[in-house]
């Protein structure tokens, strides 16, 4: 029982990370219908830059902030490159984001080497009635709650959030209102960058990241997002948490080595099932 509580909390925390990555993908997809393969890159770059900022002597908090801001700027850049002025198909933009993710490897290996890099987080451990939980996991959950409330407020209350939603609801209508849809897409990429950077600095203390961790991160983020049909943040949160908990339970009660495979299997099944459902309804969820 106590063990179960431990697994659940760790699972929820890891799931929040997936949800954060997934929300970045959702933010971008809603406006642009592009799946951003470089989403994992934002996490890795954000984490690596934060680790360097800390080692240059910036205090905790500030160092992490530098990483997140850098990831946001990276997001804007990726968006600017992936969304051409003339407009290209979403799948072409997807391939551009692959290219940028690979190009980022060169930078990451060149500056930080190819070994996993860790980040100092909260080292303390919470113990109660036989359960030991690293406080970093609790921090992840707490920060995630704040972030998701922030996301909700941003999209429902702020004017620019409203415009982003308008672009996803009806991009021609948005153009008629004089909203520059490509620019909104770039802003969405920036938001994706911030969310990716946040997930990077939060996960790195418990799970060191190397340059090629990005693939697993983006795939798990995509998994969380896809469970929510790529368009709803709250579903992405739910999807991420489910995946995280399933992973931890598999690792805890069965075998750690199959946790990723099972989670990915769930995702494929979800997509296929959703596709079959949509086909029956006669709507196309894919673009």
């Amino acid at each position, binding site marked *: 029982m106590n063990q179960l509580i431990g697994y659940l909390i760790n699972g929820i925390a890891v799931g929040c990370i997936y949800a954060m990555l997934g929300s970045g993908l959702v933010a971008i997809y809603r406006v642009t219908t592009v799946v951003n393969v470089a989403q994992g890159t934002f996490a890795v770059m954000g984490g690596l830059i934060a680790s360097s900022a800390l080692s240059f002597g910036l205090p905790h908090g500030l160092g992490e902030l530098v990483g997140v801001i850098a990831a946001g700027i990276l997001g804007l850049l990726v968006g600017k490159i992936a969304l051409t002025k003339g407009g290209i198909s979403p799948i072409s933009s997807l391939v551009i984001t692959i290219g940028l993710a690979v190009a980022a490897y060169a930078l990451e290996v060149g500056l930080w080497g190819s070994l996993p890099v860790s980040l100092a987080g909260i080292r303390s451990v919470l113990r109660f009635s036989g359960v030991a939980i690293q406080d970093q996991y609790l921090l992840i959950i707490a920060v995630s709650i704040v972030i998701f409330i922030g996301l909700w407020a941003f999209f429902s209350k702020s*004017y620019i959030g409203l415009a982003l*939603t308008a672009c996803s*609801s*009806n991009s021609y209508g948005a153009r008629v209102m004089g*909203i520059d849809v490509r620019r909104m897409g770039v802003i969405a990429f920036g938001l994706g960058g911030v969310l990716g950077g946040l997930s990077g600095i939060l996960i790195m203390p418990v799970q060191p990241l190397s340059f090629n961790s990005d693939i697993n991160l983006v795939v798990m983020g995509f998994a969380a997002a896809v469970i929510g049909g790529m368009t709803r943040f709250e579903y992405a949160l739910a999807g991420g948490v489910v995946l995280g908990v399933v992973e931890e339970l598999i690792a805890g009660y069965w075998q750690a080595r199959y946790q990723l495979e099972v989670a990915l299997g769930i995702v494929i099944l979800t997509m296929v099932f959703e596709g079959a459902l949509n086909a029956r309804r006669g709507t196309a969820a894919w673009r």
Partner: protein
Amino acid sequence: MLEVANLVVHYDGAVAVDDVTMRIENSELVSLIGPNGAGKSSLIKAVAGLVPIDGGKVSLQGRLAYVPEGRQLFRDLTVDQNLRLGAWPNRRQSTDYVYDLLPEIKKFEKRKAGQLSGGEQQLVAVARGLMAKPDLLAIDELSLGLSPLAAAKLVSNLISLHESLGIALLIVEQSATVALKMCQRAYVMEAGRIVKSGTSSELIESGEMLDAYLGGMGDGQP
């Protein structure tokens, strides 16, 4: 207010607007009539900068708001949120302004735009256009999908707006009767060209109007 000179618009080589010249004075009520595919929407879209211009000139003094064909509301957003976006990028613009002008939409300000009836949506679309505080409001397919009663109500609403605010209106209509009754002047478009223009009473009296319009229906498609 608006001057269009020798405007040309192509789509992949096909001509949609062919050497069109027209003008609208301040606070004028003008209609644009013509059969399907005549190029009416293309003309307004070019004026609004939504399609590229392939020739000629458009000069506009003041602000233009375009109420597009098919209304193009943001269905997942509430009416109030739709209205706020009408003022883009001016986030401080209060929606009270249009609620005062069109009190009937205040009733459903919190509802999702996608859940409204066609007539209600058209009203919201017009209101969203007004949020930009335009000097010229161009409305594409004003009465499409509306019952005659709803159309008449919308027309009277618009006329009172025109009278109280002094904005100029450009109304695109398929129904020549509605358009001519409502507006002072009209342009008739066919196959990308302006084939007739004049005051509404001139056009009605000449009797050609109805013939031209009906005649254009059959072979209107270029």
